[in-house]
């Protein structure tokens, strides 16, 4: 990892994600159950279809203080509203674990920062990210300046917004990314 990019084929990444899922699911079932004991059944052999709402998941101690908690849960939910089934719950923690490969983490980090879900990080997305990070204590001019500088520095193809390729390029120059984009559970 790092500057020597490991190229996974699509099938390999899928398979890897599946295996990550399997590793964590038994451990996480207890945690999922205790979020809403009356909703979540202990017996999954009939594949019940229950989803926990955003508000419950966001109160977990690992997520409670994270400024991006809402976006994290939303980007792993199928309906985009933050209601997670158990599979999605395990998906979330497996991508955020230390075992996930860099490509996978980059994909989801991009989704988390993409507030308007248009597959680009435009200036508004960056401004919202900045506000979440600094508790809205920067002046509007400073916010504007920082976001403009950010786009100027990271945008490679000149369309004034950051595509996934730009984002991945930025991430490849941050060797700490693997260790900071990580939540222990």
């Amino acid at each position: 990892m790092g500057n020597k990019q490991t190229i996974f084929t699509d099938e390999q990444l899928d398979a890897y994600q599946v295996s990550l899922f399997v590793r964590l699911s038994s451990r996480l079932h207890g945690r999922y159950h205790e979020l809403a004991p009356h909703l979540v059944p202990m017996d999954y052999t009939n594949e019940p279809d229950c989803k926990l709402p955003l508000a419950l998941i966001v109160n977990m101690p690992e997520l409670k203080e994270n400024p991006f908690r809402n976006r994290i849960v939303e980007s792993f939910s199928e309906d985009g509203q933050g209601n997670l089934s158990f599979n999605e719950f395990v998906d979330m923690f497996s991508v955020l674990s230390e075992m996930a490969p860099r490509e996978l983490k980059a994909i989801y980090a991009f989704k988390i920062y993409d507030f308007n879900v248009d597959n680009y990080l435009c200036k508004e997305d960056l401004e919202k990210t900045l506000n979440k990070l600094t508790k809205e204590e920067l002046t509007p001019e400073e916010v504007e300046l920082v976001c403009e500088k950010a786009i100027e520095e990271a945008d490679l193809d000149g369309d004034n917004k950051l595509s996934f390729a730009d984002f991945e390029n930025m991430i490849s120059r941050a060797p700490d990314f693997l260790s900071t984009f990580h939540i222990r559970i």
Partner: protein
Amino acid sequence: MKELVALSTQDRIRAIRDLPVSFQEKKHIRCVLHHEYDKLYIKSARQSLELWQGTLKEIGGKFGSSVLSYFLFLKWLLMFNVFSFLINFGFITIPLLVHGPSPSNVTFRGLEILTGAGYFAHTVLYYGSYSNQTLLEPVEYDMQLSYFFTIAVFMVLCKITLIYSMSKSFQENYVPADSSSSSAWLLLTGWDFTVINEKAVRQRKDNLRESLSESAQSELLTRSEKLKHFGVHLGCWILSTGLAVGCGAGVYFLCQYEQKTLLVPFVVSLFNLVIPLFYSLFNKFEVYSSQRSQIYTLVGRNVLLRMVILGVLCHYWMDVVAENFQCWESRVGQALYRLVLFDFFFLMLGSLFGEFLSNVIGTKLLLHLGVPEFDVARNVLDLIYSQTLAWIGIYFSPLLPVMQMIKLFILFYIKKVSLIQNCQPPRRSARAAQMQTIFIFLLFFPFFLGALSVVAYTAWSLSPSEQCGPFRGLNKTFSVIESWMEDVDELQGSRWAAWIYQNIILSQIFFFLVTLIVLVIIYVFWQVSQGRKELIGLLKQQIVNEGKDKSFLLDKLQKLQSSRKKNLKRKKKKRVGHAGPAESRGGGRRSVGPGPPTEPRSVRLQRPHSGHAGPTAGAE
């Protein structure tokens, strides 16, 4: 339990079923998963046995990855010492103990723990009491060779481990200089998700805000201001070098009292504790262009100070002690023992002053100072210095790593308690990965190599003492190898080994040739990396050009479509009654954004394409 197992298999089957890949691939994936399961069991078993796993997670969660790197470094050094202890004890000490140690006629008084002399002087702790004979029972064992080779092999293994970790760390963590403090970088990668403690999160937010607002206000410095800064830098460097040299001179002067009093280790440790505080003071007067150069300067000055002190001490030992005393190796060993012990006391004292008192002062007396931070750089340098002492001491006192082990073990708990009680998380996100590389590099380059050269010089040039130790009676320690090679030469079967020794290891031409070849290879690699840099520049330019092409083609497409629409409308007006479908041309301007996948598991990941205009709707 049964439900959980059922859950895993169910989910696993469902997950595999969902993948839109061929049946063969699914079978292959199932095999892979079985392997993964086995590996997982082994890995979790190993993890539960690892030392301090839970504590490290706790520290990382509260204080972030840069403070965690200190504790990981400590654990790594502890492993070195454990390994050293095992091989020294196994190969050198146990045979001697089996053979029967030489009797000592000095009684044990409590003071020996402090001075290392007296009762300890004749025990297996020091070089002096190792015999030089070939033990005959239970198996033929040459003590001289075993002593020499154990130390040599350990040093070589350490060197290989250090070089390997250094290069791996450098490869993983290399960051080009221009991107380290840019806004985009801070914004997108600056948040540490591992921190979950509420206070810590708040602190991080404040610090990030400060860094971002600093970088947003870029100031242009006038020429006179730049000159002034340069002058201040120069002055501080001269002052700090002067201080270091002064300390070295002081230690040299005090060395004459080394044998009788405990003055030297006390003064050395005192200097190591106090002078870095002066350096931090100088730091406050200077203005740095980036935070990185600030840390590097501070670390550089501290390293200079310690190298000067260690250099003076080694010079004294090699030149004065070696000439004037009987059994000088044991004396050097004792001096090192005292240094290690006092270093330990002063490290604890440093924890007391550095963290506990600062906390008290910061929260009760001078409130504007606030809660202190854990100074990772200074603490890591302390660790590196103490490990260097252990490395120098291996030759003179084979069981010194035991002391180092105990010292590191206790230090871990002291630092942990001090950290949790007294410190706040670091203000800026000091890039842990880069600091890790720097620390390993520092460990290797001045310190380990210095220790290695001291030991090598002792083994190569100095004559061992005549009455004690495993090399008594020889001219030089290295003669052990020579006489061994003569023995080997006489055995018929291993003539080749002796031949190799005579003609390759001893010949100078061989090493000359090897050096030449290595230099040529370095030059070739350097040229290749220069070429690659140029290529990167060209490729970046190409990406920009393709972006421009894309927007140009999109514009053209739009114009074409609008003109076609107009044409179509005109045609429709002309032809009466012609029921032509009013086609809206395809998707028009479909979003061409290369995006990350939206479905986690069931859709193939779309690799981003740097694309020309993608939509197929009638582009000409």
